[in-house]
């Protein structure tokens, strides 16, 4: 996105952006103090910042983070282990692909998270419900982009393999798969982000697991600054996850 196109003219707008955020927070602080904004529904930003320190210290945030990260890892393994082979199978069998590809695309447009009560019945309120939803949500992009990557391999590369008389397996491992990797990685990036969004969302909805229930618990205690701080915390963790996955994809490419 906001890629610096020239070195110098970027500094001013970036500073403006930061300044706007700081100013907005300051204005909210003043308005809440003046009770122009109802202090019962919006806590002072300064209180939220203090509460942020409190929940990190008191609510077992490290443990919660590890629980959510573990669920994310399990979903990531499943998404990779199912999605990439599924994409390869669809690439290999053209008719199957023609039959199924639109279904997979349609699944990615469907509100998959909504089946969580179904998994609640099957797995109970356990991390497997959460992992299952995360996996389902992450699969379509991985399958579709694996398929797309394999399809888009340049014929030149395939012909190089032919001229070396590679057999089918060699052709796949030495030519097709490596050439498709960039597309597969972006599929994985999108898939993992979808999985993570759904994991945290379902944690919140079923009040089980790591970071999601944190928000619930503080909201149920009517700990207003705590609730806001917990939401900020989870948003920050999501953004960090997003940045890490994005960097990882660039690095792997």
């Amino acid at each position: 996105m906001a890629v610096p196109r020239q070195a110098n003219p970027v500094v001013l707008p970036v500073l403006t952006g930061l300044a706007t955020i700081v100013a907005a927070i300051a204005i909210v602080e003043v308005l809440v103090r003046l009770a122009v904004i109802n202090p019962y529904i919006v806590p002072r930003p300064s209180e939220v910042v203090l509460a942020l320190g409190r929940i990190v210290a008191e609510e077992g945030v490290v443990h919660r983070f590890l629980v959510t990260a573990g669920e994310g890892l399990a979903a990531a393994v499943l998404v990779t282990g199912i999605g990439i082979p599924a994409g390869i199978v669809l690439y290999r069998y053209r008719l199957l692909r023609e039959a199924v590809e639109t279904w997979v695309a349609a699944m990615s447009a469907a509100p998959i998270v909504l089946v969580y009560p179904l998994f609640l019945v099957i797995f109970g309120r356990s991390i497997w419900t959460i992992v299952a939803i995360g996996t389902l949500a992450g699969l379509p992009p991985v399958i579709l982009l694996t398929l797309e990557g394999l399809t888009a391999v340049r014929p030149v590369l395939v012909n190089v393999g032919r001229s070396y008389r590679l057999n089918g397996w060699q052709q796949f491992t030495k030519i097709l798969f490596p050439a498709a990797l960039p597309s597969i990685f972006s599929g994985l990036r999108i898939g993992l982000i979808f999985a993570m969004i759904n994991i945290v969302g379902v944690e919140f909805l079923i009040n089980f697991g790591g970071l999601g229930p944190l928000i619930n618990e503080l909201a149920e205690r009517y700990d207003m600054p705590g609730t806001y701080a917990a939401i900020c915390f989870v948003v920050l963790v999501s953004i960090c996850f997003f940045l890490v996955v994005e960097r990882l994809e660039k690095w792997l490419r």
Partner: protein
Amino acid sequence: MAPLSDTSSPAGGLRMNPVLGIRLAIIVVLLCLWEIVARSGLLYQDVVPPLPAIGRALVALLASGEFYSNLTITAYEVALSVVIGGLLGLVVGFVLGGSLFMEVAYERYLYYLGPTPKIIFFPIMIMWFGVGTGSKIAMGALSCFFPVALATATGMRQIAPILIRVGHSFRASPSQMIWKIYLPAMRAPVVNGMRLGFGIALIGVLLAETKLSKEGLGFLVIQNYQLFDMPAMYALLIVIFALAIVINAVISRIGGGTPKGVRNAKSSG
């Protein structure tokens, strides 16, 4: 997902092409497997109810007034949230896409906030807008805003400069520029953003309804879960999925593009 498949199965012709044959074969195999599992008692029968039970539940659902009254409420919430979130997204997208300064200053924040789980803002939305439809609409609008804003901004940057020059050489006024040049040139990305926005606004509204509400389709789903009425829950999920997929296809038809969810998900982060 077996029961989902029969909603998308085309009617079989006399001379089947192989693709259609494979589709039908997959559907038949899945349905048979489902029925075998249901009758074998390997899983609780309640978890995997026999197909006739789901069929009866589907008929009962579509015949009940309760379904339509809740559908109306959810449709109202989603429509309003797409209008609010979509319009805000359009405006913000125009501002970000129209100026390099604004882009560098603000777009990164949208880009990073976009892929966060919006449902966690629900407690705040309840405090601001109450436990009724207000907080559901707010959830949907919040979800819808990000993909529309980012898609609009990206779409605006991709307009061929020659179109803009044509507008200027005709001395078009700013509003003429928007209506005659920018919007038509951006139809595909904007409609695409709207399609993504609709999808996640629907998710936002339905999830909020499952979390805390007393009306709407999300509420019906969670009510079926609490009553442990699995056939009814399957029937409801089938209908919701079918509606979501049909509306998605309709919107992408408007945009004149093929439904390619994943490609576009990239632009919205």
